[in-house]
């Protein structure tokens, strides 16, 4: 076999286990969902097999779904932005600190070890009427009546940020840690200030990590349903709640399938944008 042929075959050998897994555990099952979305739920609760466009018509034309989808994207975007603002400096600190980076990272992952549900619910103990914050403010005398801080959009975003921040920090850290610090020092020695060196050398080089973290935060944030359920008020539902409700509460799997494919399409478009963006970042890096 020629070297070139081997060279051409090798990546496929490396890729095949992952691709096989994704194909059979995700794409084939998803095709099932696509087929399902054209079925119809009958009044008795059984699913009628066939080719019906009812679910799609409802999912695409109903204002209700569009509004909640937009609201979901808005919440996910705010969450991602907050995660980036909070997470980047922290990741920078970890990557450039002289202390033990592994310990700092592990500490950040620590909250994951308290189950997501417990973590989310513990905000009730912090922000609730008889929670830590209100108790403290009452004790100090800043307020005379407990403030209602829970069960609104802000508390949902807060819970999401707490859930997703480690994803952001870890991704940014990984790309920052891979950047040779000599580059910054070189820029310094060429007369750039630290800020200029950061802005012109480090920041662009860490963009793939920031983008990866941002994508993760956005996608996971947009797909969540437990956080709005626990920390949201009566009207703070997100799109995944609709999917969950259609599938679990209303037992309308055909409609649920159509709705989830809709969410999938929107997030899929985002990934395509991300890919293009990452491509640009890589290009910049090549130029650097």
């Amino acid at each position, binding site marked *: 076999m020629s070297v070139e042929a081997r060279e051409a075959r090798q990546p496929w050998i490396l890729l095949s286990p992952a691709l096989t897994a994704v194909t059979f555990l995700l794409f084939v099952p998803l095709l099932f969902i696509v087929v399902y979305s054209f079925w119809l*739920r009958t*009044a*008795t*609760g*059984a699913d009628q097999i066939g080719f019906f466009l009812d679910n799609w018509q409802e999912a695409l034309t109903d204002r*209700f779904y569009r509004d*909640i989808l937009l609201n979901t994207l808005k919440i996910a975007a705010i969450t991602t932005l907050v995660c980036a603002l909070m997470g980047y400096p922290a990741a920078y600190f970890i990557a450039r600190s002289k202390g033990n980076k592994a310990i700092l990272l592990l500490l950040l992952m620590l909250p994951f070890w308290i189950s997501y549900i417990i973590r989310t619910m513990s905000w*009730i103990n912090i922000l*609730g*009427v*008889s929670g830590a914050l209100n108790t403290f403010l009452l004790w100090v005398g800043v307020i005379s009546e407990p403030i*209602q801080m*829970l*069960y609104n959009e802000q508390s949902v975003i807060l819970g999401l940020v707490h859930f997703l921040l480690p994803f952001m920090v870890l991704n940014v850290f990984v790309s920052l840690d891979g950047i040779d610090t000599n580059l910054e020092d070189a820029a310094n020695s060429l007369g750039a200030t630290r800020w200029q060196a950061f802005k012109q050398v480090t920041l662009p080089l860490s963009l793939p990590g920031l983008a990866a973290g941002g994508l993760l935060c956005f996608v996971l944030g947009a797909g969540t349903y437990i956080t709005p*359920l626990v920390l*949201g*008020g*009566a*009207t703070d*539902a997100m799109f995944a709640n*609709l999917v969950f*409700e259609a*599938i*679990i*509460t*209303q*037992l*309308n*799997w055909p409609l649920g399938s159509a709705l989830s494919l809709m969410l999938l399409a929107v997030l899929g478009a985002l990934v395509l944008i991300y890919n293009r963006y990452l491509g640009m970042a890589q290009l910049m890096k090549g130029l650097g």
Partner: protein
Amino acid sequence: MTGKMDNTTRYERLRERYMNGDLDRRSFLGLIGAAGLAYGVQTPFAKFAHAADVSQVRFDGWGGVVSEALRENAFQPFESETGVEVVDGTFGGGDEYLSRVKASQEGEYNIAHLSGVFDYARYHNLGLSTVLNEDNIPNLQYVIPKLIDVFRNVSDGKLSCVPYDYGTTGLAYNRKYISDEEMQEKGARILIDEAHKGKIGGWGDWRTRIWYGALQTDQDPNGATDMEAIWDAIRTHRDLSLKYWGSGAELMSLLAEEEIHATEGWSGRIFALQEQGHDIGYMDPPNGYGWQECMFVIKGSPMEACEELLNFMLAPETAIAVAEGQNYPPALDPNKVDLGDKIPTLPAFDPNGTLDGLTFADPAYWNGNEQEWSKKFGRIQKGY
């Protein structure tokens, strides 16, 4: 009734009789041989699901103290007597569980702790019901007849479940902020009372919301005529409430931590709060929401083992212990069984065993409108 398990049970029983001296050695061996032959002939034709699940019965319930009480009083003695293992699982709600059953294979799920006749009807209509051999469940004689009849009416006189307990979804209120007099005066309308804005809660369940919507607009909960008025009442309630709760645990903590002052609530949970010393009142308004829970056997289950287990669970001492654990009265008839000291103090308990004071959901009415109403409520809930 094929499969290894039934034969194993049969063998166990035979062995017991042999040990007790009821059988001589020759007929014991002869019967064993016959059982073995039956096993050998039947097994190749037995379905895959049966062959896989023969040594165990799967039970699914609401978890927590209910499961613990059942495990201790029914499952463990059952296991040591029959050698059949009871695997217990939990679910968060009836709808979630039904979708899991729908996505399962026959025989995977066996017995479920279902809520309400409407739920029974749903399973029956989806073809998930079985026909119990009532001769194998002698303890059924202790159950309140009315509770059995409602299930029979759904499934042509046959039973796919045994009734197990009952309770109500009534009004719970914090006595510090709402007096008993105010409750008597306002009843279900306390939940749409402007005076308590932001301190009202409610279960995010479409049936409960529509039921209370009917009460707030003076309609029959099992036959409302003015749905628009009900939707309006639900909207008003939504705008005045802090949030919809999603589990019994959430209901209890919202009330105990005084996040909300009034909500509807499950009688057993409110009783648990009162037991812990919280000053929470509980009131069943006229036509309040009553429900009865049953132990349902799902299609494809090993019937004999399930029937034996149901009989175990209905034994008065078991049913009473479970009831005291979960704070819901058992389905046992107080005229036939002495229910002890605690059960008569539980909310919703009916000392006459007629349950005339309770209104249950009419399965045809609720299931017939399920698709439209659950969706409509889903929208109203989110502000539409």
